[in-house]
């Protein structure tokens, strides 16, 4: 079973790896390039813990093959902060206690960032539906929704 040489950009860095064509992008991120921030909660696209963007589209990296990433841009949780400076969503999640175990947090942050890029002023209902593919079993979502709304407000203020 021969492996495929994949060249891709991850969080702005050019990365190369050899992938078995059966391996998912999530497997490749975690096991070949050591980026374990994206999590596998289900492997079937139902929990969103592995959320990344692929050429700007929000996807479950467990439903993308590693070989499909060739020539594309991948953004993961590890690229969300700007050096030591957290993205407002990351800060607001800590401030609002929007995580308990924290396992779903990377995927939710990646998905929420894409939401706010798409829709800077979402309603509570829009946030809930956008994040419906990101399961959290600890929080009941309440503080997550508040943190996203608060970060959105802050980002709007910055932009104004």
């Amino acid at each position, binding site marked *: 079973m021969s492996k495929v040489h994949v060249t891709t950009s991850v969080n702005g860095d050019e990365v190369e790896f050899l992938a078995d064509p059966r391996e998912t992008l999530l497997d490749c991120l975690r096991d070949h390039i050591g980026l374990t921030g994206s999590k596998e909660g289900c492997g079937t696209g139902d929990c969103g813990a592995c959320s990344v963007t692929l050429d700007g589209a929000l996807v*479950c990296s467990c439903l993308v093959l590693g070989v499909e990433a060739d020539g594309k841009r991948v953004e993961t949780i590890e690229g969300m902060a700007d050096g030591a400076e957290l993205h407002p969503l990351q800060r607001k999640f800590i401030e609002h206690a929007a995580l308990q175990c924290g396992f779903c947090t990377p995927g939710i942050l990646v998905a929420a960032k894409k939401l706010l890029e798409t829709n800077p002023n979402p309603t509570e209902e829009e946030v809930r539906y956008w994040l419906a593919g990101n399961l959290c079993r600890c929080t009941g979502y309440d503080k997550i929704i508040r943190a996203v709304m608060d970060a959105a407000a802050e980002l709007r203020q910055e932009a104004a």
Partner: protein
Amino acid sequence: MRYHTPTTFEDAAQLAARAKGLTRFLAGGTDVLVQMRAGMVQPDDLIDLKKIAGVSEITATDDGGWRIGVAVPGIALGAHEGLCADWPGVVEGMELVGSTQIQGRATLTGNLCNGSPAADSVPGLVAAGASVEITGPDGTRTVPVEDIPVSPGKTALEAGELISAILLPPRGQNAGDAYLRFIPRTEMDIAVVGSAVSLRLDGDTVSDARVALGAVAPTVKLVPEAAEAIIGTTLDESALEALAKAASAACSPIDDKRGTVAFRTEVAGVLTKRAALIAKARAKGDTA
């Protein structure tokens, strides 16, 4: 497993026709990868269609309809103003498939080829009178969408054949469509019942209609009796009752982990009534 990236449909068809073992086509991958992961399917050849020119495009056809590429993800359908204006029911069916993340990958063609009777995007396509262009080793042919699924998980595609585009007819004036499904949660479920209605009005009267149901039979089903129940009516109370009755009568569902026979049969009628009213409102210019 061998991974192929052909650049034409003809090459893809040739690859598939020559392959000895199990072959799968890859567009969005949201079904194939899940099946591979669960060990249900271990393909020998996986043919990725995304390097073929035009597969990610939505184009207006000369007759006023639409041609949708096989790798157009749900999110791109929803972002396409012209398509949303013409066929909101088709678009909302696709948009109900999975989460935001799934929408970034999943395609109409994939949803159709998975062969599930519960596929959310298929009733809308059937009600719309959509067809598919099929490319095979011997050339292309065009087939109505309702003829593609033949039983759960099985399609009418022959070995070496693959869908190369989805074709929507011109919408025309005073017409609207809608799709509703029932799931226990608000998101992330497979339809327990799905119902799509497409209709045209002459004044306040329904002059033409197509009704399609999902998850109530071995395949998505076109229900002419349901359409007949509302053609020539203004969707008054008695027409809606007749519509619901015809929809329920067309159901031959199963009891399974997602719903019961009685529930599916009952709710098929309820949803069809509700979908018809939305389609009518859209035909009258309501953009919601």
